[in-house]
């Protein structure tokens, strides 16, 4: 069984080589490789999850070097669950992007680069989940980051380069901070291995411990986009292609949360910085959701809700009881799925309605009923309407908060409730604007040009307050377009998507992600039991340490 542990990393990496070798000539073969490998990783992850649940953590010392020197990979219940959810999500996003790539012209979306980069991203994410020491975690982060740089600036258009540079610089900075933290840890404890650190750190002076903890938490808070360190996220995510944004929003931030969970339980038990974590969790929730309330661009809006809901997980980590950790782990699984689904739906809406700007959308419930259903279910799930998994996750966290009973916990419970209501408000706003109301006059018709580079005033009937044609506000009248003809247009050399029926693969992948989100409700009993066991294992620490260091 132990031999299975490195495979979620190895398989995508090997497939990347194949993908690069055949990419430009055999595009179909490349697609086949990606789908096959990610399906295999999903199967493996499920097997791993069941195995670690039955017989405790599994570990591999690569090259058979003993812990302080060699690379250690460990899978326990938490990493098993994370691997399973992440590979399920990456698979569905891959199918979605295949559908999109086949419908758009493949030459313009450089699929030859997309597939290898995507596989490397998956490998990096998997590596962070099973890394058994800080250095390996750092390497996993870097693999993931370099792949994400490529994906975020796919095609190299102006806006993507601009927003990508913010992301790259922030990532570089956090990597440097991480490396400094590793150096400090090594200088203080003489090892970077998690299991050995868990044994040695408690002997160090309190100041040193707190310093290392604060450094690591800062690094992971940047990755997870916790409020004061989250300004980069809504700026850099929305410009990327829809599937890329979806997988980033779903996975990359949650990698940060996973690392916080890991170090808070394994390396620094006792919850010394709990109050601080709860304060930033509260700020994250409130500021994030208020940002979402103010937005009208769908992708930006979802980016803000992402920041807001990261707060729930940090809340669970800050409480640091078994129930809270269990709730946080459940919430991570739920949130990865739902947030990804919402971004996928945003991509579908953009294709159907021609824009992500809510003020220009409308009437989708009538013209695209399936899309409406696909949005409605995850939206209600996200807001936490009772039978769905969002409610179960929030309930778990709030129960843990009430059971804790401290002042901070009560404040957080109140904050979480308010955030939840505001999320419902935001989702209702999207529903009303994009789906329920009748189409605004500016709505692009089915199969028309969405935007042209035409900058003339001709045909602008808007007279404005002074009754002179061409001096009013713009964007009210319909765009000048050849009547009803589907035309592929470009704006400053950038291809403009026309409103055509979304390919079946895109809809199917989104539906699959929606169903996965609903499955969390259906399997809530076994899943909460599993997350509870995972939390118990995290709190106990002994199984992990014994597995790595030998009994």
């Amino acid at each position, binding site marked *: 069984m132990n031999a299975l542990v490195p495979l979620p990393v190895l398989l995508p990496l090997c497939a990347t080589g194949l993908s690069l070798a055949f990419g430009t000539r055999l595009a179909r073969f490349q697609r086949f490789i990606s789908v096959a490998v990610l399906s295999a990783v999903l199967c493996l992850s499920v097997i791993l999850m069941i195995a670690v649940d039955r017989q405790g953590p599994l570990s591999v010392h690569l090259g058979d070097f003993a812990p*302080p*020197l060699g690379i250690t990979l460990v899978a326990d219940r938490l990493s098993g669950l994370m691997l399973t959810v992440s590979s399920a999500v990456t698979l569905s996003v891959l199918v979605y992007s295949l559908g999109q790539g086949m419908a758009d012209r493949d030459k313009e979306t450089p699929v030859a680069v997309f597939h290898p980069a995507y596989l490397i991203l998956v490998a990096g994410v998997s590596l962070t989940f099973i890394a058994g020491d800080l250095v390996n975690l*750092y*390497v996993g982060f*870097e693999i993931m*980051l370099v792949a994400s*740089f490529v994906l975020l*600036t796919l095609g190299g258009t*102006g*806006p993507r*380069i*601009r927003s*990508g*540079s*913010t992301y*790259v*610089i922030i990532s*570089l*900075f956090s990597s*440097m901070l991480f*490396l400094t933290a*590793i*150096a400090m840890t*090594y*200088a203080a404890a003489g090892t970077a291995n998690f299991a050995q650190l868990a044994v040695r750190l408690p002997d160090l002076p309190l100041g040193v411990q707190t310093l290392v903890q604060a450094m690591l938490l800062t690094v992971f808070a940047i990755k997870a986009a916790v409020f004061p360190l989250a300004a980069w996220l*809504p*700026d850099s995510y*929305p410009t990327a292609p829809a599937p890329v944004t979806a997988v980033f929003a779903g996975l990359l931030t949650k990698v940060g949360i996973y690392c916080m969970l890991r170090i808070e339980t394994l390396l620094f038990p006792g919850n010394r910085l709990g109050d601080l974590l709860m304060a930033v969790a509260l700020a994250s929730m409130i500021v994030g959701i208020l940002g979402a*309330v*103010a937005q*009208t*661009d769908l992708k930006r809006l979802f980016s803000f809700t992402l920041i807001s809901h990261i707060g729930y997980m940090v809340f669970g980590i800050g409480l640091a009881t078994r129930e809270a950790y269990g709730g946080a782990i459940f919430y991570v699984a739920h949130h990865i799925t739902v947030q990804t689904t919402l971004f996928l739906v945003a991509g579908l809406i953009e294709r159907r309605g021609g824009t*992500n*700007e*809510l*003020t*220009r959308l409308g009437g989708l419930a009538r013209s695209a009923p399936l899309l409406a259903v696909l949005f409605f279910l995850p939206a209600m799930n996200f807001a936490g309407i009772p039978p769905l998994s969002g409610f179960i996750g929030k309930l778990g966290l709030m129960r843990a908060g009430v059971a804790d009973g401290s002042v901070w916990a009560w404040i957080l419970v109140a904050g979480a409730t308010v955030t939840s209501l505001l999320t419902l408000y935001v989702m209702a706003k999207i529903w009303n*604007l994009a789906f329920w*109301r*009748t189409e*605004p*006059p500016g709505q692009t018709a089915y199969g028309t040009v969405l935007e042209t*580079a035409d*900058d003339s*005033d001709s045909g602008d009937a*808007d*007279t*404005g*307050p*002074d009754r*002179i044609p*061409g*001096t*009013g*506000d*713009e*964007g*009210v009248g319909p765009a000048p377009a050849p009547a009803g003809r589907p035309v592929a247009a470009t*704006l400053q050399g*950038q291809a403009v998507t026309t409103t055509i029926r979304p390919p079946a693969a895109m809809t199917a992948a989104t539906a699959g992600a929606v169903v996965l989100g609903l499955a969390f409700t259906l399997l809530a009993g076994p899943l909460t039991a599993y997350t509870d066991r995972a939390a118990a294992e995290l709190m106990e620490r002994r199984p992990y340490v014994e597995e790595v260091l030998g009994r």
Partner: protein
Amino acid sequence: MTMSLSLLATAVVLCAVGGILMLSRPLTRILLGAVIAGNGINLLVLSSTGSAGAAPLLYGVPLRRITDPLPQAIALTAIVITLATTAFLLAMAYRSYQLTGTDEVHDDLEDRRIFLRAEVLGERAELREEYRAEPGRSRKDRARYRQEHRRLRARLRADRALQARGRDAGGDLWHDVLGADPEDYVNDKDDDRGAAG
């Protein structure tokens, strides 16, 4: 544990220089800053070995006297990773230069949009005041007014073209936040949305 002061001092200086460079706008400077700060941090990693010893070889050197090889391995990994990110940043700086003629990192989208909007709306309100205050409106005045108006709109349009698909909101705060119905659009043609927004 003893530490080499010279190593530490060099690391501090490099990190400081790199940090200052990273705070500037051009991507090439940020790139240089990242490289320098990265080297400084690698020195920090190396300095965590403690005092220097013999080369970490397996045979011929007593185990007690060799330097700790692990930080060297960590530093080596970090160097390789820095190489990769440096290559990427260089490519990005060049691409940015190709596209915009400069490799500066531009402002946050929202910030710029809010600033530009406020500026254009302010100018337009001023223009309108001026136009209305004039007693006799000749044909020439009208033409000039229209031209000025067009110039302001062109600015907003240019901004919009810059940000690929991120479109501008309507300008009416009430409608942008709560959403407007088609009837509102019809009714709204009469009142002054520009000044209200």
